[in-house]
């Protein structure tokens, strides 16, 4: 086989890594200590690809060779694809080369499993160590933990990286057994638990002494594939709530299932991947993390799936009409956050602005509230902006109705007879 150039290797390894949707570069404010790079607490996007997703980190695999044979995975053993591997030093050099040009915030390093989990982990650690120690790189590094690896290796990795993650991929034990028979639930959850413990423990220790090196300061994340197996949204959202609560998880990513393999165990997806479902799950996820909603408020046994036509916050509001309309000048912040059309920022701005005086309906729009939705759920100085009381039956229809696109105007041709008449009437104003 002819030797591949670095560019060709990079293409293959990017192809293998792109299905991991994690993109965040936020949460770490690592300082530049006499080398290159730092962490930006808010995270920075550097570009956007043709699918609209942002590019923040150099997202690559160390190798696409893998001893496992997971049904959904593009890199599985039984696929007849070209296998390549980068050395840890090559990974580090690529990262620095792109970083110096400000094309990336840092590195996202994932990998197939070569030989065994421990050996693979050691390669990942070595790439990270070279970046931190030899290149004195203080930018963002997100590294995958290999399920089944020794927990001491997990700890070493977390001391070097900003974020570590183990992908759960399948929301239930049964699906995992069916689709990823080489991986056990235990092998995935054990490192997650250890990472969670170490994050909490290190944070406490660092309150006493800042000399203790941080452990994964940007936290841990995971990914769930949506639609490859039969779980309901309720199962998925409850699982996510558990991960946020018990394992101190920072982010759960949802990835609409895209069939890259032909496999009888997988659902046959025709047409586009379940992108709307994925979008609704992200909305529900945001409601849990920033808006104070519990999983049980969004879904229950009777309605185990999110409404695809209505966002979950509006759905909750329609089921809880008894608390609306809220008077924005009096309602506590926790309730303002529950109004459709009011986001975290506008809720905070309302809370700030009403200290200076009573707010009117006009003020709300100026403060950034989306009145198109909020008008049905709030009053200001006792005034209600909508023509429809919040208990009216038509409210649901109003909130789901799609704005029809405006008709497009075409440039009429002067030499087209029919158009010429139109132009004539436009000029003269006669019909």
């Amino acid at each position, binding site marked *: 086989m002819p030797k591949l150039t*670095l*560019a060709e290797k*990079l*293409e293959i390894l*990017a*192809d293998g890594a*792109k*299905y991991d949707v994690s993109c965040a570069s936020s949460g770490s404010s690592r*300082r*530049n200590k*006499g*080398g*290159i*790079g*730092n962490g*930006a607490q*808010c995270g*920075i*996007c*550097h*570009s*956007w*690809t*043709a*699918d*609209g*997703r*942002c*590019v*923040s980190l*150099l*997202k690559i695999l160390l190798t696409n060779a893998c001893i496992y044979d997971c049904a959904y995975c593009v890199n599985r053993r039984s696929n007849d694809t070209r296998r390549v591997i980068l050395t840890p030093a090559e990974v580090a050099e*690529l990262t620095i*080369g*792109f970083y*110096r*040009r*400000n*094309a990336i*915030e840092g590195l996202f390093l994932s990998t197939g499993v070569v030989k065994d989990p421990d050996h693979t982990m050691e390669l990942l650690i070595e790439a990270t160590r070279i970046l931190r120690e030899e290149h004195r790189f203080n*930018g963002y590094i997100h590294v995958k933990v290999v399920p089944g690896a020794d927990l001491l290796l997990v700890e070493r990795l977390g001391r070097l990286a900003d974020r570590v993650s183990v992908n759960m991929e399948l929301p239930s034990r049964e699906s995992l057994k069916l689709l990823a028979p080489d991986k056990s639930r235990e092998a995935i959850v054990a490192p997650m638990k250890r990472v969670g413990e170490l994050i909490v423990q290190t944070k406490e220790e660092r309150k006493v002494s800042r000399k203790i090196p941080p452990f994964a300061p940007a936290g841990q994340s995971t990914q769930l594939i949506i639609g490859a197996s039969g779980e309901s949204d309720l199962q998925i959202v409850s699982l996510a709530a558990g991960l946020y609560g018990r394992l101190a998880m920072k982010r759960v990513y949802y990835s*609409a299932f*895209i069939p890259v393999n032909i496999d009888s165990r997988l659902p046959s997806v025709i047409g*586009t*991947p379940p*992108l709307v479902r994925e979008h609704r799950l992200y909305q529900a996820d945001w409601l849990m993390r920033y808006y104070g909603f519990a999983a049980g408020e969004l879904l229950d046994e009777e309605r185990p799936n999110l409404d695809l036509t209505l966002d979950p916050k509006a759905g909750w509001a329609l089921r809880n009409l008894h608390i609306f309309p809220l008077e924005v000048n009096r309602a506590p912040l926790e309730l303002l956050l529950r109004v459709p059309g009011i986001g975290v920022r506008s809720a905070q*701005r309302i809370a*700030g*602005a*009403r*200290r*200076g*005086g009573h*707010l009117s309906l006009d*003020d709300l729009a*100026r*403060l950034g509230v989306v009145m198109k939705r909020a008008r049905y759920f709030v009053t200001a100085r006792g005034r209600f902006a909508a023509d429809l009381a919040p208990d009216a039956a038509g409210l649901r229809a109003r909130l789901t109705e799609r704005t029809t696109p405006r008709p497009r105007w075409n440039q009429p041709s002067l030499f087209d007879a029919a158009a010429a008449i139109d132009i004539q009437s436009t000029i003269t104003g006669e019909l």
Partner: protein
Amino acid sequence: MILRYDGTFAGFLTSVSLARERGLEPEAIADREPEQQGLFATVETVATSRDRADELYRLIRHTLTPGAMQTFRYAFQSCEPGREILLFRYLQLGLATGAQFGAMLAHEAVIPVWKLARAVGREAHRYKGLVRFQHLEGDIWYAAMEPDHCILPLIAPHFAARFADQRWIIHDRRRGEAVAFDPRHQKWAATPLELTATLPCTAGEEFFRELWQRYFDRLAIAERRNPKLQRQNLPLKHRRHLPEFEQ
């Protein structure tokens, strides 16, 4: 009365200070000759006074909350014509109301300034990702950009901390201004800059440029293709100096 100043922050503060002293609101404060002169408006050229500017600046810092102060600073970096008179009203209200000012988020003198500051802040944040350096002969890292607002002084500290070991220049080609960073002294400075020749790139630059382009083209997932979303997140005007969008 129209006050004409030199376009600097100190010049603007001097104009505000003069207007406050006279106790009247100017029709406009501008850094160039007004295009349509009002029939009765008189144009007065303000000579920038460091002392006046410092004095007013201290008063503002003392009175405004840090948040209101940042809104004021960011809004000044906007290039919106007419921003000066909005900022004048903003300051007048802030200085008159003092501690109350922080809660006047919905006031008609605050909203337009807040909107300007938000636009500037967003653009500055965006360009922290969109500035792209090229490695030039002579070990200089050069980046060109054409932002809507005057964001160079807002993003320079970010790059100074991040690329502390590189000699870099960020060039605002729209305004003919640049900031240059000197790693020996760890300082950046603003300077006027016009390009007269093409820039000599290193061999490594060509190599990484091609590598990046090929990498980038592989990243999109075909089944999720969504150019509309891409355009929404990255409008065409921002793509001009990005190697991945070069034809």
